[in-house]
């Protein structure tokens, strides 16, 4: 009898802790730096307003790769977080493992399908079911330029590859670093995305980077893309290797360098330096990629939770993520644009408004492509295999022709 009582008490205790947990969402993410963490705090506040607690699980580093390791440990332990910040194909991989929750009910109710671009939905849905809530769209084919240098050298925003090269030659001749760049694999690859898009156009990008067609990968156009990389390599300073992207941005902001090719998050650095878009610095698409947007999208993938209370709070979170208020609040800070295309751009600055318009345009005209460099074109093993080739080539280990060949074998090995 006494046994029974104790077991009973233990049960009550267990279920009560379960309830306490149910009101919390546990969120794994790598947004730990000042601005973005503050933006996330908006989401936290919103949820707490609805009585949903927030258990924070930040794991920074390696563009989320450490966070993914942690996630694997948690899933293996049978204790996944409620929601996980995730990029592109990782979402599909986890969905394929059957680890993600089904958000169809909420999505239908709020009409997500109508406001989220189709190219994004590829990642947010798996086999027709919504599994994650997209937060933003980063476009990666931006050039960031120092207005003062451009004015000094009498440069216009270049409209073609040749003008772009000419502008850089002018800057170099004037003693500036033409292209600020950090020699890290993902930065090399970010530029490479734009080169492929610029040389071959959308169809080629699709064939080579998404469909992984060996013919496209080994084609003359690919060789040319690599040759453009060599040209760019000639414009970076000697000290580029291993440099963090934000230091490269600082070079442009400080007036040491003319251009940087980087995603829209770079804007935060300029703003932090007290500069304004369209004034001290300006932004335009990488020449040759106008009309297309290569993107990556941060999403919150929702993991399977079992009890009703947890599901309720999970839904509350998904709903909050998709709310226009949060999308605006977060993206104005982050530099990216909202994942919903039905949001007013009033709060955004010049580059933000440009980005939103171009995104809507590209989405409508089939010019929206996932960025290979950011895991939105193919799965991580292929992505990293490409990284290896691109970086090795950029650091002078192969010539352009060999690099294209290497690309074919590396992708084959990674599949």
């Amino acid at each position, binding site marked *: 009898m006494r046994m029974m009582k104790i077991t009973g008490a233990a049960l009550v205790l267990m279920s009560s802790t379960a309830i306490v947990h149910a009101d919390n969402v546990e969120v794994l993410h790598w947004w730990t730096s000042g601005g973005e963490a503050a933006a996330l705090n908006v989401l936290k506040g919103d949820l707490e307003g609805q009585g949903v607690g927030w258990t924070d699980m930040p794991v920074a580093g*390696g563009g989320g*790769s450490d966070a*993914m*390791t942690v996630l*694997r440990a948690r*899933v*293996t332990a049978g204790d996944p977080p409620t929601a996980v910040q995730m990029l592109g194909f990782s979402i599909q*991989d*986890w969905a394929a*493992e059957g680890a993600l929750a089904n958000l169809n009910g909420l999505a239908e109710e709020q009409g997500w399908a109508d406001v989220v671009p189709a190219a994004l939905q590829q990642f947010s849905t798996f086999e027709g079911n919504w599994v994650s809530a997209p937060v933003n769209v980063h476009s990666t084919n931006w050039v960031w330029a120092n207005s003062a240098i451009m004015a000094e050298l009498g440069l216009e925003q270049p409209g073609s590859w040749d003008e772009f090269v000419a502008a850089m030659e002018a800057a170099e001749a004037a003693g500036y670093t033409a292209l600020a760049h950090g*020699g*890290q*694999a993902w930065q090399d690859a970010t530029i490479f995305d734009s080169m492929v898009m610029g040389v071959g156009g959308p169809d080629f990008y699709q064939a080579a980077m998404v469909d992984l067609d060996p013919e496209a990968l080994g084609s003359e156009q690919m060789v040319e893309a690599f040759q453009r990389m060599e040209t760019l390599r000639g414009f970076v300073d*000697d*000290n*580029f*290797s*291993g*440099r963090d992207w934000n230091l490269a941005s600082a070079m442009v902001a400080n007036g040491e360098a003319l251009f940087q090719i980087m995603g829209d998050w770079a804007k935060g650095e300029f703003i932090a330096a007290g500069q304004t878009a369209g004034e001290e610095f300006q932004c335009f698409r990488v020449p040759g990629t106008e009309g297309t947007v290569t993107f990556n999208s941060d999403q919150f993938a929702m993991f399977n939770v079992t009890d009703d209370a947890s599901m309720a709070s999970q839904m509350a979170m998904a709903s909050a993520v998709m709310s226009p208020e949060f999308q605006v609040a977060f993206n104005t800070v982050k530099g990216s644009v909202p994942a919903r295309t039905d949001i007013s751009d009033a709060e955004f600055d010049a580059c933000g408004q440009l980005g939103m318009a171009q995104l809507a345009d590209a989405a409508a005209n089939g010019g929206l492509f996932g960025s290979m460099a950011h895991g939105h074109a193919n*799965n*991580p*093993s292929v*992505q*990293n*295999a490409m990284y*290896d080739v691109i*970086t*090795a080539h*950029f*650091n*002078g*280990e192969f010539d352009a022709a060999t690099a294209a060949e290497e690309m074919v074998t590396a992708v084959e*090995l*990674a599949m």
Partner: protein
Amino acid sequence: MAMTDSGTDFRTRMQNWLPKIVLAPSFAIMVIFVYGFIAFTIYLSFTGSRMLPTFDLVGWQNYERLFRVRQWDTAVVNLAIFASLYIVISTIIGLMLAIFLDQKIRGEGALRPIFLYPMALSFIVTGTAWKWMLDPAIGLEATFRMWGWESFTFDWIKDSDMAIYTIVIAAVWQSSGFVMAMFLAGLRGIDNEILKAAQMDGASNVQMYRRIILPQLRPAFLSAFVILSHLAIKSYDLVVAMTDGGPGTSTWMPAVFMYEYTFTRNQMGIGAASAVIMLMTVAAIMVPYLYAELREKK
């Protein structure tokens, strides 16, 4: 002191069992958490696991792929360069400092912690600090140029062929003080009468070290070798913090390779295969040492 007689009283029997009982948890822990996991990894290396472990056997495919991947060759070559330089240089510096400190040096008490403290830092901190120091734009090179030595160039960390040596520098910085401590302990343990005898025999200082003292430091050499080689094989944090494998993939090491393939590239099978190769390397170094060590002590 095992007693096996029948008719042993309870207390004695208990005392015979206690040692085994005390050791049993450690043994069980090792069997599960080390050898069980190793077995699991070996098994994984024969499966087609990608993101999470799966149990479909694919034979030697992962190993075949592993040896075709260029980065693996890089990693192995790098480990060979890194390990040999790191071990040799740390040993030489450690030994030299120990011998110097053993000359009745004034201020030894202050110098010792200075030499030893890098060992207290995590490789993450060490790597970050050295990354800054060796960065030509802001570190040593920039400083020397600022002081007027315009032609001074030290940009190894940016050079694919030389970057691995900067990792050696940082690693040596971190561990050589520890090696020094081990040698110093060894030196202080040597019987002074032997040294006096050697002096009477007319040995010079150099001869004394070469012929009398160094041979007696054999255990310290062995310990240093074992600790350094295990740090070398496991080196992961330092590379990640300092160069993150770069420029390109030129500073990858097997441990970096394994982590990348298993956790970043979703190729768990190949990652496991590389882990198995690493384990076999460690075993090839350690097992003979352990065997000799344990036999001797019997």
